[in-house]
């Protein structure tokens, strides 16, 4: 470009600064959670459309301002757990889930005192039957005084499920307590 044309072109260039760079620098710095915020926004939008719900109605159900709902669906809000749960309750749908830790290897149920006055295996079996009859567990324990029982899913059973932490806790909750403290380890 010759000097005359270059000068002409440069006189046309504004001194304004595009807000784009600041926005994109911010997006880069927050890329990890922005992806989840966008995914939640997309899910919220599709859900309110399916339920023929307005943003105003959603705001009322959540007890927040319409402006807050509008920010959420823009997909750039760092949402608190409280807000996410409010959304889930208002929409009647799960937005995020925490995978349940699952035991696939045997875990050991321990008691701080030896199992001596009651038969732990029978008790665990009854609890198992009570709670999850479709699961099949193998129990191993010494016939003598013991403070440990190994409990494992029966991998040979076609209805094998890995043991979830929720099940394990339910199991412990239903064992006789007294002064006995139980714990588990994988």
């Amino acid at each position, binding site marked *: 470009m010759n000097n005359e044309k270059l000068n002409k072109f440069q006189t046309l260039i504004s001194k304004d600064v595009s*807000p784009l760079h600041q926005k994109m620098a911010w997006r880069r710095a927050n890329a990890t959670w922005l992806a989840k915020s966008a995914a939640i926004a*997309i899910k919220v939008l*599709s859900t309110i459309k399916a339920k023929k719900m307005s943003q105003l109605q959603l705001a009322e159900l959540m007890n927040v301002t319409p402006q807050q709902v509008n920010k959420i669906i823009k997909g750039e809000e760092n949402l608190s757990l409280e807000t996410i749960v409010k959304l889930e309750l208002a929409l009647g749908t799960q937005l995020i889930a925490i995978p349940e830790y699952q035991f696939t290897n045997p875990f050991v149920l321990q008691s701080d005192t030896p199992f001596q006055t009651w038969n732990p295996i029978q008790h665990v079996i009854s609890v198992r039957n009570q709670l999850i009859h479709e699961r099949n567990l193998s129990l191993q324990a010494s016939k003598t005084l013991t403070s440990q029982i190994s409990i494992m899913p029966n991998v040979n059973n076609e209805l094998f499920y890995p043991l979830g932490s929720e099940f394990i806790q339910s199991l412990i909750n239903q064992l006789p307590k007294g002064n006995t403290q139980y714990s588990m380890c994988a």
Partner: protein
Amino acid sequence: MKIVPIFEPHLYAFCHDSVNDEFYKLINNWLDPEWLENFFYNNKSVLVFENIKLEVAIAKTIKLADKLYDKIEFYQKSLDTQFRNLDNKSLSMKPLEKQKIKSGWLRLYALRIEANVYIITGGAIKQSLEMKDHPHTKEELIKLEKCKNYLNCQGIHDIDSFFELNF
């Protein structure tokens, strides 16, 4: 009308409404789930053509928009390698050529001032082979002409000023 620097001295963008430049407006829309939902809901041909659901299209467009900005920033000194003639069938480059850059189905339209110097005039989510066939991209063609005429009126002419580009 204003010309706002984006990656000076290589990339600029027209500002038609004296509020925000075209590049910022485009990227902002393409990152906005609400805007995108409205767009794809009213332009289902993209979903049909790509055989994807609305939610997937929205998520994909947001990712494309982030990547498009990164790509332009990376290639800002060699934009000639990225922009191509608006007319896919033409290999010869004309001065002050209408150029476009591709990133998936996102389209940026620009005027080429000289080697590796472009001014973005607008953009669109591509829906058909020919720009003239779709109302949205038709609007972009009109904007391109308007911007070209503006530069001509300001004494920036294609003759002797701009080089042919081929990519």
